[in-house]
């Protein structure tokens, strides 16, 4: 991995580490929102919300376009899913191990049973 891509991964996790940003992301994943409409949802200044939107944009989780005087933001579903998908992949590894433990301990009781005639 290059330095640039490492920085990108850092930006991604920094973006997701904040509750307000996660909430903004949930909204823009559901559909396009103007930044001013988003700002109205939070008890903070327009500038503060705009800053959160910029962090999400820098991390590649959100894209912005202009429509007249409005800035419209929408979420990138693929980008969000990929973080979760890695943990899901790891989950499969652990599920496999747990299933094998289950088989292993089940074979104990079979050995203790009297042999079938």
């Amino acid at each position, binding site marked *: 991995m290059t330095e640039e891509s490492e920085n990108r*991964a850092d930006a991604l996790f920094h973006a997701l580490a904040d509750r307000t940003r996660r909430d903004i992301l949930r909204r823009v994943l559901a559909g396009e929102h103007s930044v001013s409409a988003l700002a109205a949802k939070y008890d903070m200044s327009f500038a503060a919300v705009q800053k959160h939107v910029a962090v999400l944009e820098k991390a590649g989780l959100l894209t912005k376009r202009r429509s007249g005087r409005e800035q419209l933001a929408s979420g990138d579903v693929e980008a969000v899913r990929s973080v979760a998908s890695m*943990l899901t992949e790891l989950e499969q590894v*652990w*599920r496999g191990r747990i299933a094998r*433990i289950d088989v292993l301990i089940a074979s104990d009781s079979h050995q203790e049973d009297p042999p079938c005639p």
Partner: protein
Amino acid sequence: MPVTDVQQDLDNLTLTITADFAAPVERIWRVYADPRQLEKVWGPPTYPATVVDHDLTPGGRVTYYMTGPEGDKHAGYWLVTTVDEPRGFSFDDGFADLDFNPRPELPVSKNVFTFTEHDGGTRATYVSRYASAEALKQVLDMGVVEGATSSINQIDDLVAS
């Protein structure tokens, strides 16, 4: 199915899996305390594990390699950090060369296994944590993947653009 709960913490790259086994705590402990049992459960059928060193004490090391379908070998080690027999233990899990020297350039996960009595059986909690998304990606790229098609390409695209 023994798995009763899965928590994915996307912020902290932590996976927590809870499983209920129909066996006493001491029996589940033996799965990890006996290298011959541990190697039966650690690697997937396509990459069976062979445990070489096995010192399940604080500061002790467990070393293993997994053998792939082409005869390719992939070595790893545990550095055991705490032990509370039979209620659990914690360890760092990393990659090693085939002489079991740790490969510090590759990621290490921090793992905590806890076993408690539950309804006459055992409730096992497995917590596995990675330092970064990059670390998790590297681990999955190294082939610690169980019969799952890799979805890593998605994050490749994400970080490569």
